[in-house]
């Protein structure tokens, strides 16, 4: 079979499934981000008092509804260290303190800074894609040369009593540890 035929066969096989669903919005980037978000949670440890044994893991999404949908698809049927996962979509004045993970998008830097100040010290893994998120939250997702990457703010993670695995730290483009410093 030639390569073109192989690809054409794949196009027919899958486009049949999707044609019925009819997708107008872009789901690729949200899906990729959701995969990253789940991966961050997988390689982070929460203090026992922040995430008791029987509690469900509360993954919150503020802003972009496409990320909430993608995250819901991504975590379906999955657990985090034995914890069931719930995805909660929140408004900016929602119950942010009940989150174990908080993805922030579509909000201004000033709003992110104000939220970060409110949540300071709480064991909440903050994730975002705003340009200056590296300084305001723990995991910053960005696109560089067409590739999705992330920075980690280790100082903020420590302050939030979250343990980021060495594996995760090794994959980060940059690890910020202390004001104005970038390790690696």
């Amino acid at each position, binding site marked *: 079979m030639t390569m073109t035929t192989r690809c054409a066969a*794949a196009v027919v096989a899958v486009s049949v499934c999707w044609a019925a669903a009819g997708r107008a919005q872009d789901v*690729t980037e949200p899906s990729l981000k959701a995969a990253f978000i789940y991966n961050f949670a*997988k390689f982070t440890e929460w203090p026992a008092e922040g995430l008791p044994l029987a509690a469900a893991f509360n993954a919150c999404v503020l802003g972009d509804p496409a990320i909430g949908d993608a995250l819901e698809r991504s975590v379906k049927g999955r657990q985090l260290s034995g914890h069931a996962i719930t995805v909660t979509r929140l408004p900016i004045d929602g119950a942010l303190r009940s989150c174990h993970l908080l993805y922030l998008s579509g909000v201004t830097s000033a709003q992110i800074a104000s939220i970060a100040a409110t949540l300071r010290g709480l064991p909440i893994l903050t994730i975002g894609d705003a340009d200056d998120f590296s300084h305001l939250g723990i995991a910053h997702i960005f696109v560089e040369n067409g590739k999705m990457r992330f920075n980690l703010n280790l100082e903020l993670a420590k302050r939030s009593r979250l343990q980021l695995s060495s594996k995760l730290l090794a*994959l980060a483009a940059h690890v910020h540890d202390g004001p104005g410093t970038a390790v690696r």
Partner: protein
Amino acid sequence: MTAHAMAGDRDRYLAAGMDGYLSKPVDRNALFAAVESPQAQAPRGRLDGRLPPGAPLDREDMRRRLGDDGLIAEVTTIFLEDCPVRLAEIKTAVAARDRDGIRTAAHALKGAAGTLSASPVAECARVLERMAEAGAIDPAAADAAWLSLEAESARLVHALGASAPRSLQR
């Protein structure tokens, strides 16, 4: 042609995007058969008269950024599900000279391919995206870019399908 003739070598080379496989010592009949095979003679997509060189994806770069097998598997699944849909959209948009359609679908495909370190597909998608952004579509250039993208995508899907867990193959 290679001296690597162990079981599995053939699949490995084909998965990496080679059109055929011949191991030493050379069998005269096998050599002629390979050169005359449809694979060796099939027209390939062209971009400015050149084929984008190299492997369909840089697995080392991908592993450096995504590391964890779980994340690689997930991003691979996203791409394998998304690629055929985007290609169908791009094909339709190119035929209709629909700039918005080309731009949106090519941008999405570029992101998924780029995150897999699949530069040839990402690059072909970027060419189409730029074309759509630049202004009126030049039909011949758009058709050529589409053929390149289609061929590179097939190469990548094949490489991923051959190496991905069985559950990801389609």
